[in-house]
């Protein structure tokens, strides 16, 4: 177990800059997730940490040792790959012990270690099989076993669950979380799946175009996104973005909303809106903050009830998503399935702006920080 410091790491291929100065510090035992759309540089950063690619500039420290120019095998890192990368000619047991063998661990010790890891991952019955004889989920377990066997200082997971079917992915997700709780290892985990990021991470680094957009706990990132990109990337269904005019009502800046009737929504930090009175900004509101009228919320300071016209409904079982159009933008609302909402009908909905955020329309930067 060790901490990891990434200091101003840059990576250029010719003139294209893939990493534009990454700074991340990961505490020992922390589970950090790198998330972002494809091409954002997260895999390049991962390979740089592993030493499989050289960085152009900056430093990488593992357990306070500068490993920027250390070869991969001397960094004491294990990695789980998306394709699992199991050695096809070796049995499961040989796969798991290969790293130990390369490090000249005596045979008896290797056997004990293989058994320990196999028991932990419940793959003892597979030890004599070849990778080709395993199912996707079993290969995934073996790949994890191979990483665990060496007890390295740092684990890297490169989209390890992407090749599994939906059900297995959820199962393995829970398993990885349990494993991390049990072993308390330092993990850097790359994914493009924001649900994986939310559920697993101690902290998330959201990346885009070779830059860290925001680094924080899942809840911070969900509630308090640094910019429009982060707000739109995290959360499913995505946050609603509505262009609104800032108006003055009783000298307090409010957000004008034209649903069926024009209403002014109050904002928790009105002072941050003062500079934008008379202008149009983007209001960010999560679907679960627009619900059917809930009696217990009635009368709370940032709750506004108004009428909307239902365009389409999408029942999801636990909730029903109601799609409507506000200020020209399509928005998602999350309502109780029991609440009657026919397509084309006009219904009452409750807008809770206590957790609303606002962005600059052009730059996408948060305005109410």
């Amino acid at each position, binding site marked *: 177990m060790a901490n990891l410091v990434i200091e101003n790491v840059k990576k250029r291929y010719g003139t294209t800059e893939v990493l534009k100065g990454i700074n991340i510090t990961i505490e020992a035992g922390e589970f950090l997730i790198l998330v972002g759309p494809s091409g954002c540089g997260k895999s390049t950063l991962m390979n740089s940490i592993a030493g499989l690619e050289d960085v152009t500039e900056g430093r990488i420290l593992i357990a306070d040792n500068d490993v920027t120019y250390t070869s991969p*095998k001397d960094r004491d*890192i294990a990695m789980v790959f998306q394709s699992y*990368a199991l050695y096809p000619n070796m049995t499961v047991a040989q796969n798991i012990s290969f790293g130990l063998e*390369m490090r000249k661990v005596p045979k008896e010790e290797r056997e004990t270690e293989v058994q320990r890891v196999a028991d932990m991952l419940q793959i003892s019955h597979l030890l004599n099989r070849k990778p080709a004889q395993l199912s996707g989920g079993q290969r995934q377990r073996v790949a994890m076993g191979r990483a665990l066997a060496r007890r390295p200082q740092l684990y890297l997971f490169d989209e390890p669950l992407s090749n599994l079917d939906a059900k297995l992915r959820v199962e393995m997700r829970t398993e990885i979380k349990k494993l991390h709780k049990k072993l308390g290892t330092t993990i850097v985990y790359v994914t493009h799946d924001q649900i994986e990021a939310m559920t697993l991470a101690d902290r998330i680094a959201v990346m885009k175009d070779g830059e860290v957009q925001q680094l924080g706990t899942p809840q911070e990132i969900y509630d308090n996104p640094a910019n429009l990109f982060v707000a739109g990337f995290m959360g499913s269904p995505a946050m609603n973005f509505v262009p609104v005019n800032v108006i003055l009502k009783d000298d307090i800046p409010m957000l004008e909303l034209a649903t069926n009737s024009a209403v002014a929504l109050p904002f928790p930090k009105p002072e941050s809106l003062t500079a934008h009175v008379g202008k149009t900004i983007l209001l960010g509101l999560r679907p679960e903050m627009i619900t059917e009228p809930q009696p217990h919320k009635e009368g709370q300071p940032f709750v506004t009830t108004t009428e909307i016209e239902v365009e389409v409904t999408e029942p999801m079982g636990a909730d029903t998503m109601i799609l409507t159009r506000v200020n020209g933008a399509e928005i998602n609302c999350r309502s109780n399935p029991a609440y009657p909402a026919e397509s084309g009908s006009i219904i009452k909905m409750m807008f809770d702006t206590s957790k609303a955020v606002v962005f600059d329309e052009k730059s996408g930067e948060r305005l109410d920080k």
Partner: protein
Amino acid sequence: MSNHTVGRKTSGLDKVLRFALYAVLIIVAAFYLMPFVVMLITSLKDVEEIRTGTLLSLPTSLHFDSWSKAWSGACTGSSCEGISPYLMNSFQIVIPAVVISTLLGAINGYVISLWKFRGSDIFFAALLVGCFIPFQVILLPMARTLGWLGIANTTMGLVFVHVIYGLAFTTLFFRNFYQSIPNELVKAARLDGAGFFTIFYRIILPVSTPIIVVTVIWQFTQVWNDFLFGVAFSGFDTQPVTVALNNLVNTSFGGKEYNVDMAAAIIAALPTLAVYVFAGKYFVRGLTAGAVKG
């Protein structure tokens, strides 16, 4: 056959077509086999019988003395030891040439596919050009090179020529095969602590059997059947069997001994035939081998 195809009725037309198909296949096979059959028949006749001009008729009585003469008595140029010494020469050239060119091709392919470096694609493209260089073009420069290296007219010189010339092909074979191996396999092994050759030997080579067989067959056939390099770069006592065969056929005292010529030609062709018979099924399998799934 029809007993096994339950629920599927073969109409009369189907049967006719199938019959026609087999007929065509048999005719084509016979056409291809004909020269070999004639060679075999001729080698078993005596010279007198051959003169009568009954090319396709079976020998009236079997004569094996043409075979023993071809093996150890026929004259090739000035020496009369048959072609057996040259057969040995050929093996001495072919075996090291095949082993070395296959091994180097494997390492080249491994580097080009899995350890890409700046300009590795250009390097590969340049190497590919080597597949298209005609033999004749390199004769003179190679003769100079061999002389300069001091291995002109030696077995080692011929091995050297064949290794160089074969490298482009063997590299191409291995490179294409290794393209299907996921790069992550090498990354995983590097993190596990394995080095360049350990990864090659422990992980890459064990999955390479199909392409090794393909390359060995290809190289064996190419080198064994080579005549031009053999005739240009061999010394008097290092001539490969193809050159000896040519000399044998062209050397005659009195009448032409077609039976001996035929026996010698069959002996010279046997090793390549044997390689195809024993490894042929791997050849097809190797050519069509798909991705190595991990």
